């Protein structure tokens, strides 16, 4: 009895400290967040050990025989397993029954989670575009109040803001890199060529090689519209209809025409293909450049070796102006299942897995661009992470996107790429654009 009471007391002491950071207790101390931040600072060697400033074992409360399931994408499973072992070692006084790491493709994470939350993972990784689906199905636990301010202080702003609804943060930011950028063979395309779309295409054409971009896929083709200024801005008040910022339709149409013109001029060089063909094309020498995502980085690097080049997306000449291509850009999060039996353990594990050291490790072994600012500094010399980070400045966050968005944007790209499309036909471009917007907004 005494022992129990002692634990409770110890717990309450730490709790007040942490509640203080969250600002919910109306507390007076800010030391919690400071100590956590400085704690991570001291570790820059990449070993994901946990030092004394992490949440201590009493935070687990009365949870014992802890049995958790973690979902990570196939490529990350080995690493996450190691990190979990480290976690268990650190909290040696806490009784863990089992922490299982299972492979679960991130593209299906939300679908499988929502199908049956009880059988889903307790802690799981997912990309930002699935956030609203998960929120609607109420399967995400809000982040423990004690962690919120530390997360806000240590991570890039956009991923944190995107995961907030009202006062609550609903997921732990894991990466700030889920997007695409320009990859090229640096023996064909020079770093200078890579600055403009025209330059890239011209260089490819001269070498008789292809440039690959999946123009029929809404994920990539929305770039055409975004570059013209037609950015999206979450949902309308009904929570389902896509909202656009106020844009100048004329500029959008002009920009679309510029893209279509390039496709026409460089027909045979500009090819719309599945991005999976890019690494294959690098290998057999048919492709010299392409727009590809971070998930294929390792494959492309392997294919090109020393010839590998990466940069942010280029600019395109519209009229007299060089416009920077604006892409869709997402983040990866780690979420905690609202139905988990071990709420505290799951939250602490998620907090640990998204901490600076774990993020640095993933950046080094998997090439995932960290959301943690300090981890970012540690790996900023990597060319891919540089390119991605530069592109993230010119991007629309991939959150709150209507289901209609993808196919409609895909239609936009595939129409423009079609043989019969006339890039100089302003009226046709305008009517296509209006149709696409109407379809996205389900009007």
């Amino acid at each position, binding site marked *: 009895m005494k022992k129990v009471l002692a634990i409770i007391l110890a717990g309450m002491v730490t709790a007040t400290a942490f509640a203080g950071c969250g600002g919910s207790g109306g507390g007076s101390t800010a030391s919690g967040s400071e100590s956590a931040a400085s704690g991570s600072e001291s570790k820059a060697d990449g070993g994901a050990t946990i030092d004394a400033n992490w949440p201590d074992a009493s935070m687990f409360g009365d949870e014992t025989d802890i049995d958790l399931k973690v*979902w990570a*994408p*196939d*490529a990350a*499973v*080995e690493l996450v397993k190691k990190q979990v072992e480290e976690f268990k070692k650190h909290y040696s006084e806490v009784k863990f029954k089992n922490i299982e790491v*299972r*492979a*679960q*493709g*991130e*593209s*299906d994470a939300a679908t*499988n989670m929502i*199908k*049956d939350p009880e*059988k*889903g*993972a307790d802690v799981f990784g997912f990309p930002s575009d699935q956030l609203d689906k998960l929120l609607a199905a109420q399967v995400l636990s809000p982040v423990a109040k004690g962690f919120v301010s530390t997360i806000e202080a240590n991570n890039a702003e956009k991923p944190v803001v995107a995961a907030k609804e009202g006062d609550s943060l609903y997921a732990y930011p894991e990466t700030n890199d889920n997007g695409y950028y320009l990859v090229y063979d640096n023996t064909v395309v020079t770093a200078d060529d890579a600055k403009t779309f025209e330059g890239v295409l011209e260089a490819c054409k001269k070498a008789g090689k292809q440039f690959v971009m999946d123009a029929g896929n809404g994920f990539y083709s929305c770039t055409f519209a975004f570059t013209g200024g037609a950015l999206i801005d979450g949902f309308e008040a009904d929570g389902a209809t896509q909202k656009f910022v106020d844009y100048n339709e004329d500029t959008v149409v002009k920009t679309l025409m510029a893209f279509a013109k390039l496709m026409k001029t460089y027909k045979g060089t500009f090819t719309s293909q*599945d991005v*999976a*063909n890019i*690494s*294959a*094309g690098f*290998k*057999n020498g*048919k492709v010299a450049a392409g727009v590809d995502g971070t*998930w*294929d980085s390792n*494959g492309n690097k392997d294919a090109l070796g020393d010839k590998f080049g990466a940069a942010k997306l280029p600019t395109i000449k519209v009229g007299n102006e060089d416009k920077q291509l604006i892409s869709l850009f997402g983040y990866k999060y780690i979420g905690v299942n609202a139905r988990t039996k071990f709420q505290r353990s799951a939250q602490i594990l998620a907090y640990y897995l998204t901490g600076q050291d774990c993020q640095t490790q993933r950046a080094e072994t998997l090439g995932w661009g960290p959301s943690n600012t300090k981890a970012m500094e540690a790996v900023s010399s990597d060319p891919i992470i540089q390119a991605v980070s530069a592109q993230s400045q010119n991007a629309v966050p991939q959150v709150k996107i209507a289901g209609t968005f993808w196919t409609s944007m895909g239609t936009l790209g595939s129409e423009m790429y079609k043989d019969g499309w006339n890039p100089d036909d302003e009226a046709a471009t305008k009517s296509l654009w209006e149709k696409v917007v109407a379809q996205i907004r389900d009007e």
Partner: protein
Amino acid sequence: MIKSYKLRRHISNALIYLILGVMCIIWIAPFVYLLLHSLRADGAAVSNGELLPEWYTFQNYIDLFSGTGSSTLNFPKWFLNTFIVACFSCVISTISVLAVSYSFSRLRFGMRKKLMNIAMILGMFPGFMTMIAMYYLLKIMGLDGNLIALVLCYSCGAGLGFQISKGFFDTIPRALDEAATIDGATKNQIFWKIILPMSKPIVVYTVLTAFIGPWTDFILAKIIMGDIQENYTVAIGLQLMIDLDHKTTWFQEFLAGSVVVAVPITLLFLKMQKYYVGGVTAGGVKG
């Protein structure tokens, strides 16, 4: 006159050989393409932009079975799972189909016509929503993520596909039953001792169709298995190999896996072809 008739026949036969030959090439070419590309050595993902590979290797097959570089891809296990599920569901399905079609064909009872009509239309409901319902029903039974669940799913509706088999039973003369009844045989004995031994084509037909089902379904199985990758079947496994996470690295192995799945089924089919044709025509014409 006779001569020209003969000549004409020769010409027309030659023409037919030509057409059939060309068609066979068209029909088989994709599979040859599949086979050759499953042996492709350049490691290019989806397509190498050439009709034929430049180099050949067995590495794709070796990778497929060793599962290197992934914590999930375990093709031998998936193959074994599918085989087990196929065997069990094929036994249960065959029993159901034969029981139902024999009852409707040879036995006379009050609800017969009504049941037949209901059974015929039940299979026509295009329901993907029923899959999620099935998942939760299996979950109440504690079978989600379990191979037994798959066996149940694949064999539960088998009884509804009784038409062809019933058509076959209908062609067996009733006089046989009557003679046996006079000799004192029960309906049970008639079924086992008289009708079944005469029904080899339809039994083989039923067994074959039931056996193939588990190898091809990739929607329901995925819902039931969720993240239990060790219980996947080859169909979900192959789908997994070409999803976003694996497409760039596993496409070659996907092709190899497709060949590995297709070959045994094809061999089985070819061996049983005679009965299959016998079953489908005897039953199909009437049913």
